[in-house]
Every structure is written in C-alpha cells, then in structure tokens.
C-alpha cells in the first residue's frame, strides 16, 4: 500500500455555493502530510469525505488500501480523528469519556492512555464541561492516539490553543510517529507549525487542489526573482510564472514569482536577454500566500 489516502476524481456539492471539483489526493504511507488552505477552501469537507461522514457525487476514495463506503467500518477502526470541533460529551468526566471511547476500539492501549493522561496533565475526575480549551485539545488528541491508529486525521488540531499546549499535543503525535511509522494527515492554517513537521504538502483553494508535492520541493520550487530587462511577452520559460510586477522605484526592474524553479534555469534569462539580479528563497508561508494569490487573479479581494 503506497498511499494511506487516495482520492480520485472526487466531486462533492454543498448547497449552491460550494463544491469540490475533480479532487485527486494522494497521501503517501508513513508521511506527515500538511493539508493547507484558507478557511472555507474545502479542507474539512475533504476530511469528512474520507471518513465517510458524507458521500461524494462521483469519484473514488480509498483509505488504508480499503475502498469507501464498502469497508468504512474497517477503515474507522484504524483511523484516529481529531475533529475541528470537539465531539466529546460535556456531562462525562475525563475518565468516563476515555472508557466510552475505548469501547469502540479493540486496539485501545489502556496503559498508554494512562501514560498520556499523566504526561498531558489531565485530571480524570474532572467533567469535560469544566475543561479549558487547552485541556479539551489534549483530551481529543489523547483519544485519537490511544486507539493506536495506522492513520491520524487531524483537523486544525491546535487551532486556538496556546503555544505550550500546542507543543505538548504535537509532541505526543511526533512520539507516536517515531514509534509506529503511522501516517499523519493534518489540516491547518498555522503554516509555521506544518513547516517543521510535514514532509508532504497539499494546498487547497476554492475546492480545488492547487499543489501536492514533497515539502522540500514545494518550498524550494517557488522563488522571488529580481529581473532586469525581460521581454514583455516571455518566451516559453521552463518554470511557471505565478506573478510578474514592476519592482517599486527601481526602473525597468521586475519582480517575478515563479514555480517549479531549479537553479540551472537562470540560463533562460540569458537567452531572452534579461539579467537576473537576485533569486530569493521563500519560506512555506510566503510560498503558500503567493500560490493562492496567483490562483485568484480576477479578484484579489475575495476571501
């Protein structure tokens, strides 16, 4: 099984305004896959599809090598899920919630659950209604981990948590991955966090997948280039030009944002009689923002 998650040609519609169009997604087994996208881009809808919480209009979904919806129960048994909104019962205590959750998962690791409870500093006697946001976040991660999943699906798992709690929660995930080589599919808009831990990225916008590739390739392929004297209509470049703007106050100088860059491509500018002043590296956040900006040329104001 090469891919822990495979979506092929998935179509999905929510009301009149939002749809997923021809969505293909491939999450390699053993990867930590960062699923990036602005709010409302379709990240949560995609997650609901791959957990069988809603059905596609067309297309194929396979999770852990098993076809949906037919083998959904087998899939769910091996997937740990941290939803965007807590799915725990406010009236239960932490201990009761743990017991309740454990009863659904034959693979539940009681000793490890106890261990994590202590490590994350959760009070098992406390009612869930009385937990802080950070404590709830820890509890959700604990529930997902203690069932020893082959695949962890995390939907904005650290959104709204303070930095200390975020560190504890992600630390527990990394520990688990080091031990088991499980696949992690993590949706977030906290780009810096993903930059540290992910080895693959997928970028969503308006229900479309704009890019899917290894993190390093994604980051290193997008550059900001200062060019002097480039022709107005560029001859087929070996890279993709995302944007091209005059550099403020520097005469005929232009700033190009390009995708699919490799350093030998500098030769292209010699061939068209232009001069490269500088090739500037972008971090993940800048790459992400530039990619989204170029995908929405008609209306940059649109959220």
């Amino acid at each position, binding site marked *: 099984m090469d891919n822990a998650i495979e979506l092929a040609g998935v179509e999905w519609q929510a009301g009149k305004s939002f749809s997923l169009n021809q969505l293909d997604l491939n999450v390699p087994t*053993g990867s*930590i896959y960062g699923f990036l996208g602005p709010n409302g881009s379709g990240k949560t809808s995609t997650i609901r599809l791959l957990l069988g919480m809603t059905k596609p209009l067309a297309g194929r979904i396979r999770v852990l090598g098993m076809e949906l919806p037919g083998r959904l129960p087998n899939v769910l048994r091996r997937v740990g899920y941290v939803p965007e909104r807590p799915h725990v019962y406010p009236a239960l205590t932490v201990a009761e919630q743990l017991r309740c959750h454990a009863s659904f998962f034959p693979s539940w690791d009681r000793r490890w659950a106890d261990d994590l409870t202590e490590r994350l500093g959760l009070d098992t006697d406390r009612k869930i209604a009385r937990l802080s946001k950070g404590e709830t976040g820890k509890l959700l991660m604990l529930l997902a981990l203690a069932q020893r999943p082959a695949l962890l699906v995390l939907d904005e798992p650290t959104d709204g948590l303070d930095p200390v709690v975020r*560190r504890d929660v*992600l*630390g527990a995930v*990394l*520990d688990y*991955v*080091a*031990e088991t080589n499980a696949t992690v599919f993590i949706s977030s808009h906290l780009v*810096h966090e993903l*930059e*540290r*831990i*992910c*080895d693959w990225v997928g970028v969503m916008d308006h229900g479309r997948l704009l890019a899917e590739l290894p993190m*390093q390739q994604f*980051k*290193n392929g997008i550059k900001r280039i200062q060019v002097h004297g480039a022709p107005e209509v560029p001859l087929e470049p070996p890279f993709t030009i995302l944007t091209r703007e005059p550099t403020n106050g520097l005469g005929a100088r232009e700033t190009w944002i390009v995708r699919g860059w490799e350093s030998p491509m500098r030769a292209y500018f010699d061939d068209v009689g232009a001069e490269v002043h*500088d090739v500037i*590296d972008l*971090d*993940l956040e800048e790459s992400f923002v530039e990619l989204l900006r170029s995908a929405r040329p008609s209306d940059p104001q649109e959220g």
Partner: protein
Amino acid sequence: MFHDVDPRSPTPLYEQIAARVRMAIAAGDLSSGDALPSTRQLAQQLRINPATVVQAYRDLASDGFVQTRHGQGTFVLDVPGLVRDEERRARATHLVRKLLQDAARLGLVVQDLTEALEAETGVKTRG
C-alpha cells in the same frame, strides 16, 4: 548543537542536522564513541518529523561519520583528521558564500567586508 536549526531555511532540515553533527565532530565537540540523541529524542526536542532525523543519521552513516547499531543507537566513528579539516573548510566556504550573497543584496563589496572583518577580529588579513 542543534539550537539554530531553522525550519524556514531553504536548506532541508536533514541537511542542517547532518551538517551540525559533522561540524561538532570536526571541532572535536563530539568524539569517537559518543552517542547521538535518539531519533525520538531529537524529533521531540526540535519538534520535527522523526523521519527527518532518520534521514540525517542515514546520510551521516553513509559518509562514514557515525554508525547506527540496531536497537542501541547512533554513535560517532573515529573520523580521520584529514576529513575533519575538509569539513571545517567546507563549512567556512559555505558561510562565506552566504555572506557574499547577503552583501551583494546590500550593495557591499569585498573591501567593505574585509575591513569589517579586520575591525571585528583585530587581525589584519592582508600585509
């Protein structure tokens, strides 16, 4: 040793980690037989993907700097002085290249840099 590993840098994290270990060996901070942190420990400490640490250690092993013994950990090998010198030179070259790049962006020339270097260290670089 790993405190300045920077996830935002275009240099892949595994390369940064491997480079720091090689440099520590070259500088004598790590010597033959010393244990590197476990994959799990280092991933926790840096909050990075454990696979990244595995890859860094694998590269170090294939370059002959460390040896991973199954179930025991990763240990520094006895690295010849020649290789250590080479590593120091490689690091220095790397730093200077980066410095020159940054300087070019700011419109500084080699002369400016040399003067600054002399002023900082108090050592004349030329006769």
